[in-house]
C-alpha cells in the first residue's frame, strides 16, 4: 500500500472512479484505452505498459525488464525506478513531444 496516496493494493484507485461504468466489457475497453493513452506518454521514456489480467499493469523497458503495478500511482513510481530519473509532466520536452505526437496523428 502507498502510505501517501492511501491506495490499497487491489482496491479501486481514484483514477477508476469517475466514469461510473459498471459493465465489465465497458470497463475493459476503458482500461485498454488507458493503456493506449499512457503508452503515448511512456514512449518519451522508452517504456511501455500492458494490461495484466484486467487488474494490474505490466510495465516494461526495451531490454525486457518488467514490473507489475496495481495502478497509475504505482506505475509512475516504477517508471522512475526503471529509468533512474523523474517522470515530470511539466517537462517542456515531454509537453512538446505530446503536442507533436498529436499533430503527427492529425489531432
Amino acid at each position, binding site marked *: *500500500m*502507498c*502510505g*501517501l*496516496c*492511501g491506495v*490499497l493494493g487491489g482496491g*479501486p484507485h*481514484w*483514477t477508476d*472512479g*469517475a*466514469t*461510473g461504468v459498471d459493465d465489465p466489457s465497458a470497463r475493459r475497453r*476503458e482500461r485498454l*484505452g*488507458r493503456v493506449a*493513452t*499512457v503508452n*503515448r*506518454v511512456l514512449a518519451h521514456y522508452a517504456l511501455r505498459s500492458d494490461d495484466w489480467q484486467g487488474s494490474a499493469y505490466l510495465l516494461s523497458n526495451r531490454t525486457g525488464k518488467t514490473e507489475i503495478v496495481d*495502478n*497509475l*500511482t504505482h*506505475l*509512475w*513510481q516504477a517508471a*522512475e525506478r526503471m529509468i533512474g530519473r*523523474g*517522470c*515530470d*509532466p*511539466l517537462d*517542456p520536452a*515531454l*509537453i512538446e513531444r*505530446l*503536442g507533436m*505526437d*498529436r499533430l503527427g*496523428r*492529425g*489531432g
Partner: protein
Amino acid sequence: MSRLPVNVLTGFLGSGKTTLLQRMLASEDLADTAVLVNEFGEVGLDHHLLRRVEGDIVLLKSGCVCCTIREDLGSAIRDLYSMRSRGVVPPFQRLAIETTGLADPVPILSTVMGEPVIRHHFRLGNVVVTIDAVNGGFHLDRQPESVRQIAVADRIVLTKTDIAEPHEVERLVGRVRAINHAAPIDLAGDPNLDIGGLLSSDPYDVGSRGQVVADWLRLAGEEREHHHDHSHGHDRNRHDAAIQTFSVTLDEPLDWTAFGIWFSMMLNRHGDDLLRVKGILNLRGGDAPVVINGVQHVIHPPIHLDAWPDGDRRSRIVFIVRGLERERIEASLRAFLGLSAL
C-alpha cells in the same frame, strides 16, 4: 455502509481555535460528534461535562463524546471506533480532530485516508482553520505551517475581528485570499455563524454538496476578476510568496482517462507542492458533472453531482500550488488532454 466524516480543526496558537472548539462542544449541532482534543485542560470542559466514560473519554451534556489523544492519532481513532461498536460510547456520526497549533494538517489527512482500517470506516470532511485578525499576519510571516494550514483549508474562520483595526482585517483577508481563494471565510464573531455547517457542509454531504461546489466556483470566479485587476497589489511575504492560487477553465468536455493519467503523474512528481486541487469536470460522454478534490497526495474519490450548480458547463479546476508555474501546469494539462482527441 456510509463512512463517518472526519473534520480537522486547526489554527495557530492564540488564533481562537480553542474558543471555536468550546462553542462546537456546547452546540447541539454537534450532539452526534466525537471530538479528539489534545488536552481536556485547555478546552475547559467542566461545565459541559455529563459523565466520564473512561480515563480519557468523557460524555458532554450536548451528547458529544470528547477524548484526548494519548498516543498516536491512528490508535486514538481506532480505539474510539471500537468503543462505538461495543456501545461503550454513543454511536457518533462524525469525528472532529483538534490539532496542535504548530501542526501541518496534511499528515493527519494522510492518516485518515492512508490507514486501511480507518479508511474503511471514515472519510475526510472539511478542514476548518482559524486565523486571528490581530496576529494572523505575523504568523503567516513567521510560520510556514500557518501558510500551509490556510492553503489546505476548506473553511476559514477569522477571529478577533472586534479588536483589530478594519484595515488590518482587510489586509489579512487579502493575504488569505491570495493563498486560498476557494475557501469561504467566516467571521467567528458573526452571531449567525453556522457552527454545524462549518463541519458538515462538504461535497460528500448530499444535502449541501450543490451549494458547496457553487461556492467554490463563485469564489474562483471572483479570484479571476481580482487577478486581472490587482494581481500585483498584495503584500506577499517570504512564506506565502511561493504559494499561488489560480483556476483553469476548460471549454471542451474532457476525457477522464487522460485527466487521470496527467493528475496521477503530477501527484507522483509534484504532490508535495500541489497543496489543493479541487474543481468540477465536464466529462466527455457524461451528463453529470464530476467533482475532484485533493490535498497534496490525498485524493478523495471523485463524485458525481446530480446537476450543474450554475449555468456554466465548463470544467473549472482550482489549484493552490507552491513553487510551480501556472503557465506550465496549464500547458501540460492541455497537452495531456489533447492525447484523448486522437
